[in-house]
């Protein structure tokens, strides 16, 4: 009995280890390739680790010798678009979340159902109409236009998630502060905001990942001006440069992926809670 139990535990852990390693493998392969010199990348017998690790792929990407423009340009574009859309959409989402979690009003259910529906509209279909609108409004090849899109498209999910966090704050705390003579602004900044801060972090991470990773809109709206490219478009741009330099592409993906990965590892515990609050409210 005891032996079969132990045997089962060992099998379970063995399977778990295999699952984890297989899952991590593509990430490992990306990093490993990024450090390989060209002779090893195109070798007939690929090795898991670079025999002669080199920084040259990264150097080529960062100084821009592959596509004629340095990495920093694209990093800056991505940061500008991502950070500004996260800040604005989080503020908007918080206001809306307070409305739906704290007030009963006539169009509340309509508003919530609308959020569920619009978040399912396919971006690759909407992009057709949006392209014509942005063209008319002179917002093509503009980071401002892209930021506006990211704000709007991250809102449905962030509001939906954030309202659970607001609802979880006991109403009595706000009432007690109000009885002590605090005005609505004081109640908001001193009581509600500190308590929903963890939730705000979670939803911001979602908005961040969405904007940082977004591809369809960036591809369509930044089509002609290379200097405006965000990182996802920049990574795929290597394909269009004649012969495919996998070392450079992998180095570029590492530089694109690493910031999200690190950020993600820092907040992952909270994120796990948010992932569930957002999609599967049981």
């Amino acid at each position, binding site marked *: 009995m005891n032996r079969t139990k132990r045997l089962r535990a060992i099998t379970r852990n063995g399977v778990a280890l295999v699952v984890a390693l297989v899952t991590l493998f*593509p990430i490992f392969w990306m990093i490993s390739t990024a450090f390989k010199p060209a002779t090893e990348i195109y070798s007939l017998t690929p090795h898991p680790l670079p025999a002669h690790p080199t920084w040259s792929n990264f150097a080529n990407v960062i100084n821009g010798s592959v596509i004629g423009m340095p990495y920093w340009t694209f990093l800056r574009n991505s940061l500008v678009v991502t950070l500004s859309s996260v800040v604005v959409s989080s503020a908007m989402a918080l206001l809306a979340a307070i409305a739906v979690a704290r007030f009963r009003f006539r169009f509340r259910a309509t508003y919530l159902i609308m959020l569920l529906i619009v978040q399912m509209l396919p971006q690759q279909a909407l992009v057709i109409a949006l392209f014509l609108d942005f063209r008319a409004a002179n917002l093509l090849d503009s980071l401002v236009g892209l930021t506006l899109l990211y704000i709007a498209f991250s809102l449905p999910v962030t509001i939906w998630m954030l309202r659970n966090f607001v609802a979880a704050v006991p109403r009595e705390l706000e009432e007690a502060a109000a009885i002590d003579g605090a005005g609505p602004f004081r109640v908001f900044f001193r009581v509600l905001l500190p308590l929903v801060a963890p939730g705000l972090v979670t939803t911001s991470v979602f908005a961040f990942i969405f904007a940082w990773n977004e591809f*369809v809109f960036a591809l369509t709206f930044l089509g002609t001006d290379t200097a405006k490219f965000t990182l996802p478009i920049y990574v795929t741009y290597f394909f269009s440069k004649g012969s495919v330099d996998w070392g450079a592409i992998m180095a570029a993906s590492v530089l694109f992926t690493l910031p999200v*990965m690190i950020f993600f590892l820092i907040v992952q515990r909270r994120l796990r809670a948010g992932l569930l609050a957002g999609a599967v409210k049981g």
Partner: protein
Amino acid sequence: MPYLLILPSAVAIGLLLAWPAIQLAVYSFQDYGLPQVTGAAPTSWVGFGNYRLVLSDPEFWSALRISVLFAVVVVPLTLLVGTLVGLLLNRLGRKMAAFVSTAALLAWAMPAVSASVIFVWLFDPDGGLADYLLQKLPSWLGGGARWSQFSWTNAPLPAYTVITLVVLWQAFPFVAVSVLAGLKTIPAELHEAARVDGAGPWRVFWKVTYPLLKPIFLVLLLLSVIWDFGIFTQAYIVTGELGNRDEFNLGILAYDKAFTMPPAYGVASALGMVLTVILLIITAGYVRANIKQGAVA
């Protein structure tokens, strides 16, 4: 007061999500191409003309077939793998569970662009790892020399095999974590009681776990169908950025009609509408599932 609070988000969503959806519907009934964009000719109503054009286009039927088949294969696969990993996570020790779920969530957080690019490289005919390993495989396992420089992106079946792997890799973690969260809500006594009564793991799952987690499975199923039927980024990159017309799915075909010269916005909008309507029908199920669970109340 509540109206003032939802005003900013309602305006942003209305202007950039709801309004374009309405425009898309309008354009789908119009003759809208390059002359109309440049102002050389006015837009004119063509009734169902664009839709007739779409329905008589063999490319549409090929794209629809690909979209449907892809969802039919990938959705059950994702749910199966995700559920198995979720069940496994539930029985692991604390440290091992943390390790596996961190690995899985890293794959989930990976940008779709990076994931696609990595898999295109893994399956590259010149130097890619997959062809190398398949060559080394003994022939009774299907390996051998025919895999030498095998191109995965030149035909729909191999290309969508690669896309399936990319999507599975990035989508199973979400299912696993959701299932795990559901499992945590089931009292351990229920499982123990079933086991004491002599039920094997298979019976325990179908008689105890599945009925209790049914709402979660329903939501996961609907979300997966919506995501996979409308898959764009991964398919766009793996199939060579609009390079192979016989590998288009619905979303890519609509995109191609609008953004490959000369643009046919009317026809593209009709295609976009077909995609949107199909997804909205599935979404109706998703909304109903949410209302039933009391998420809207």
